[in-house]
């Protein structure tokens, strides 16, 4: 045993991200950490990395209790982490990013630039990627950023390597290379912790696993005792089908039409229609460009070409205001950054998209503002203490409900939802699904982006697969299955 957690708990305000979770990593073995979105995987990793200090419970290093006061401590103890969100320094060169914190130095402590570059080149060669170590990290694609992160962790000669969804943005060949490298590391005695939503990868790479659900510990043991199906059941904790109460709705007329929409370097010639009552899902790998398409449709990004029409009427490009007037609503993927003003109150947030309707002669009628918030809080069964509390104190799922309230109160004709259930607990997730389904039943056209295939399969009437900025397949509900979608999304057959 190299490093272990014993009955660790961690809360963020009302959110209990980890509840008495234990985990043991052993030298020379790869351990998988499994769980749905928001199960607490990244939080657990951040505890191991010294980013978060546990509220209770213990961290054991070589069997002895230890404390990581900062990431520096964890690093010094030989723990290297690849975080879910890339943590690169855009202004610095790729080589320097890889070397940061352990620059090769000459006598007198001066940094050896040549050695630094060679090191990066050597690591990239091991990973079989071709990134110029001298270029600035800013502007790297998500996949390249992830590769730099991996190189960074490999370069640190750590005895514990933790990877939070390193493969999410990678293509088949790159994943294969990574696995080769991880295998070699294991043989040299490193302990590996691996997080991925791709179950087959997990079975290929790991010998043991721990499953979390809603921050709680569910199961830990050797993977050969499990099958992919049984693991998923452990993760979800209930039958899959019951999760997605999709109502069958007869699709109405076309509401949203997107024609040859292009944003240079991001996506090209994207066209599709969404009908009233229909849920169209955009599927694809992380970084495929789905969010970018949604942003351009809504107008927060200005497309370089193409048009967006609502009920046949073209809307002005690059203007969220115009999109909103035409009846589009947009629940963005990054709730905390894009969806909410965290410091502002629940009612302010709920009313933020409706200010024009709530004010007369420019003055906001605060009574109407409050009643709007209260009505929707009741309708969405929001759990809150006061409407004047900042949304920051709400749990993730409740925050997402506030974002939904913000848009639903405008009664949109088209609702775009990007990762609507990311980081939301299972119960709330089902509720969100019920809500979307009801909205569709009421005739709203819904464009849904989701990285969770079960969600896509359960909710969508039609699935549009995006790969590298282009739509590569359209599948009707009946013909959509996991295999087809993954095949279209990766361009590679699942092995």
């Amino acid at each position, binding site marked *: 045993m190299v490093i272990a957690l014993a009955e660790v708990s961690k809360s963020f305000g009302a959110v209990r991200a980890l509840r008495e979770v234990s985990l043991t990593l052993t030298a020379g073995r790869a351990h998988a950490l499994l769980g749905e979105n928001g199960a607490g995987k990244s939080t657990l990793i951040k505890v191991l990395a010294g980013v978060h200090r546990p509220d209770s419970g213990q961290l054991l290093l070589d069997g002895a209790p230890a404390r990581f006061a900062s990431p520096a401590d964890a690093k010094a103890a030989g723990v290297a982490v690849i975080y879910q969100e890339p943590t690169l320094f855009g202004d610095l060169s790729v080589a320097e990013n890889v070397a940061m914190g352990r620059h090769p130095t000459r006598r007198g402590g001066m940094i050896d630039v040549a050695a630094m570059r060679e090191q990066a080149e050597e690591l990239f060669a091991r990973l079989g990627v071709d990134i110029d170590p001298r270029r600035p990290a800013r502007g790297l694609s998500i996949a390249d950023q992830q590769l730099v992160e991996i190189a960074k962790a490999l370069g640190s000669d750590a005895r514990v390597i933790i990877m939070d969804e390193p493969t999410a943005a990678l293509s088949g060949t790159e994943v294969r290379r990574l696995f080769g490298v991880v295998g070699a590391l294991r043989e040299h005695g490193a302990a590996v912790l691996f997080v991925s939503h791709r179950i087959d990868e997990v079975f290929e790479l790991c010998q043991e696993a721990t499953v979390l659900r809603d921050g709680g510990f569910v199961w830990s043991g050797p993977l050969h005792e499990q099958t992919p199906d049984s693991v998923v059941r452990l993760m979800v904790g209930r039958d899959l089908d019951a999760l997605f109460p999709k109502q069958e709705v007869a699709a109405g007329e076309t509401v949203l039409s997107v024609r040859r929409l292009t944003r240079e370097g991001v996506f090209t010639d994207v066209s599709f229609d969404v009908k009233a009552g229909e849920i169209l899902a955009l599927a694809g790998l992380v970084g495929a460009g789905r969010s970018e398409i949604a942003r351009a449709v809504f107008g927060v990004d200005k497309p370089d070409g193409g048009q967006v029409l609502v009920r046949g009427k073209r809307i002005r490009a690059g203007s*969220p*205001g115009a*999109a909103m007037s035409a009846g589009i609503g947009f629940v963005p993927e990054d709730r905390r*950054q*894009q969806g909410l*003003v965290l410091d*502002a109150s629940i009612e*302010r947030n709920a009313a*933020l998209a409706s200010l024009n309707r709530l004010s007369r002669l420019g003055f906001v009628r605060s009574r109407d503002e409050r009643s709007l918030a209260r009505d929707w809080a009741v309708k969405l069964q929001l759990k809150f203490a006061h409407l004047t509390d900042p949304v920051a104190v709400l749990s993730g799922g409740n925050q997402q409900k506030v974002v939904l309230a913000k848009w639903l109160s405008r009664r949109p004709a088209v609702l775009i939802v990007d990762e609507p259930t990311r980081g939301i607990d299972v119960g709330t997730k089902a509720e969100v699904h019920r809500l979307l389904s009801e909205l569709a039943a009421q005739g709203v056209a819904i464009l849904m982006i989701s990285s969770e295939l079960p969600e896509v399969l359960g909710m969508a009437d039609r699935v549009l697969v995006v790969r590298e900025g282009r739509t590569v397949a359209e599948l009707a509900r009946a013909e959509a299955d996991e295999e087809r979608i993954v095949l279209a999304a990766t361009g590679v057959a699942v092995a």
Partner: protein
Amino acid sequence: MKRLLRWESALFVLLVLIAVIGSAATGGLFLTGNSLFHLGLDVGEIALIALPLTLVIVAAEIDLSVASVLGLSSALIGTLWNAGWPLEAILPFVLVVGALCGAFNGFLVTKLGLPSLAVTIGTLALYRGLALVVLGDQAVADFPYSYTQFGTAPIPGTWIPYPMVLFVLLAVVFGLLLHATAFGRAVFAIGANEEAARFSGIRVKRTKLILFTLTGAVSSLAGVVYTLRFVSARADNGTGLELAVVAAVLLGGVSIFGGRGTIFGVILAVLVLGGLRTALILGDTSTEVLTLVTGILLLASVLAPAVTKRLTRGTS
């Protein structure tokens, strides 16, 4: 919100303390009508500019060029007066020029996406430079009393200076604008989370452009007040005032990171600083004490919330 209220109460207590101690130390001079009249005049320009600047800082931007706009407008008044323009035409004209200066700041910040700190350090030099180009080293002083009385005499029968009336009017306008209108909600949202504001359909760039333009216009109005008050149009009028205004706004509890602050707090801060200055000078205390106290108050304004936050976190 609660924390802010607490800060404003602290300012209010401070203000009362200044009034009480100031009166005691000056033998009652501090609270006389005459002294309050001069206090009102003294804080006039800072108070005026602080209003729109509060909105700018709440929107997480900053404008350091305000004092230069004031100087430019003063210089223009002098030049145009010398050129024989009637004051009735000069005053609206300089207000428009001030608005344009503000709009230029706004343009650079919103259209070109430049950081407002750097932009307005640049226009701080540019506008002051233009003021010098326009009027040179001259001082123009032969303005008629019918106008200068607005800057030098109280409203007949009272001790209220005319600029205070202007200030109260604008304070109401800006207070309502920030705290009661959709526009104000947008300003807060932009300051707290610009991206979320954009994703909510708020026209971020236009809002900021309006804020900078307003700041320019009010700064030039302050230039008019300044010129009339000192009966002296000069290019170097108000040099260095920008830091005093920023200090007042920050002391008023407005977060430099945006998203937080009230007009009321800023008004209190302006009064605290002005009252302190008047009391100290009346009590024959040297200005160095004022400089020191201003700095310490500013540090307190940022440290107090940080410290209380840490304390409350420690207990919960």
